[in-house]
């Protein structure tokens, strides 16, 4: 685990996602929303809406454990993970796959 990075970034692995939108259904923070355009494989991958609101992005390193994590647990295709990265720029919508 990357210890010196204060924040994590939520990423959807576009290669694994099958577009079932279960993450959209369960996220208590409404960070996911249904996508609009099919990708190269013809799958409509969900989009991220202000993912900096995800508590796991902000607090996982601080608490040393997964906070919430509902989207990752329910994702049947193991497509959701957090990677250690620089903090999101404030209020900038990042769409990261």
């Amino acid at each position, binding site marked *: 685990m990357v210890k010196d990075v204060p924040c994590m970034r939520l990423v959807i692995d576009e290669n694994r996602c099958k577009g079932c939108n*279960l993450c959209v259904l369960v996220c208590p923070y409404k960070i996911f929303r249904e996508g609009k355009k099919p990708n190269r494989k013809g799958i409509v991958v969900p989009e991220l809406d202000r993912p900096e609101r995800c508590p796991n992005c902000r607090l996982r390193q601080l608490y040393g454990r997964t906070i919430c994590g509902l989207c990752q*647990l329910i994702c*049947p*295709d193991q497509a959701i993970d957090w990677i250690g990265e620089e903090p999101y720029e404030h209020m900038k919508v990042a769409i990261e796959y």
Partner: protein
Amino acid sequence: MNFLEWYRVDRLPSIFCAGCGIGTVINCTLSAVTSMGWRRNDVVFLSGIGCSSRAPGYIRTDSLHTTHGRALAFATGVKLAEPRLNVILFTGDGDLAAIGGNHFIHACRRNIDLTVVCVNNYIYGMTGGQGSPTTPVGARSSTTPYGSTETPFDLSELAMAAGANYVSRWTPYHTKELTAAVKAGLETPGLSFIEVMTQCPTGYGRANRLRDVKEFMEIFRMRSMLKQKADRLLKEGKPVPPDAIVIGEFVRRSRPVMGRRG
């Protein structure tokens, strides 16, 4: 450790359909295994044949993908020959309750120290949506085109009656509860049976107007009734709605166990 690290990432994405609940069940199971602090060398996954039985192929431990219905018999051999190993099975309603029904009741009777995670999706998914022993009365499938007329099995009640030490039932909507249930199953000596009522949008959903996985999830959310509430209703002489999915812990007990290490 994160449960994703237990996956054979070189085999992903999995073969499961979009919206299939099996991936969620694997996530919750692996999350429970991770929280036990076990090493990969201590865990073996087994399965029979069917959609859910493909699960061990995506997990980076030793795994035995066996013949249809027989995983419990194979697991009995693995566990008795090497009690050090923690043996976990993935199975489905057709695999466990139809072709493997005999092995199921006998494994429960022996109360052998295994954890069985049953993905009950009411249907044979791998072969294209045929009726199974848990298809509800009236539900359509490719072999019950006019609606099933057979009374389905209640697998949790069956496991309990046959003698399993731990039995609980959840759905993929209840991820945290399911994870906790699998963990309780792993901790309980003897046969632990965790039934997961799972959505199958492709096989079951297509034939029963539940093609959209969100509608399926809404059913799990709305119709699920905690065991305690169902018991209370019965006690008060009130009926439990016939379409209710009774979820929760059915039993946790300490009958004599077979195959426990030491």
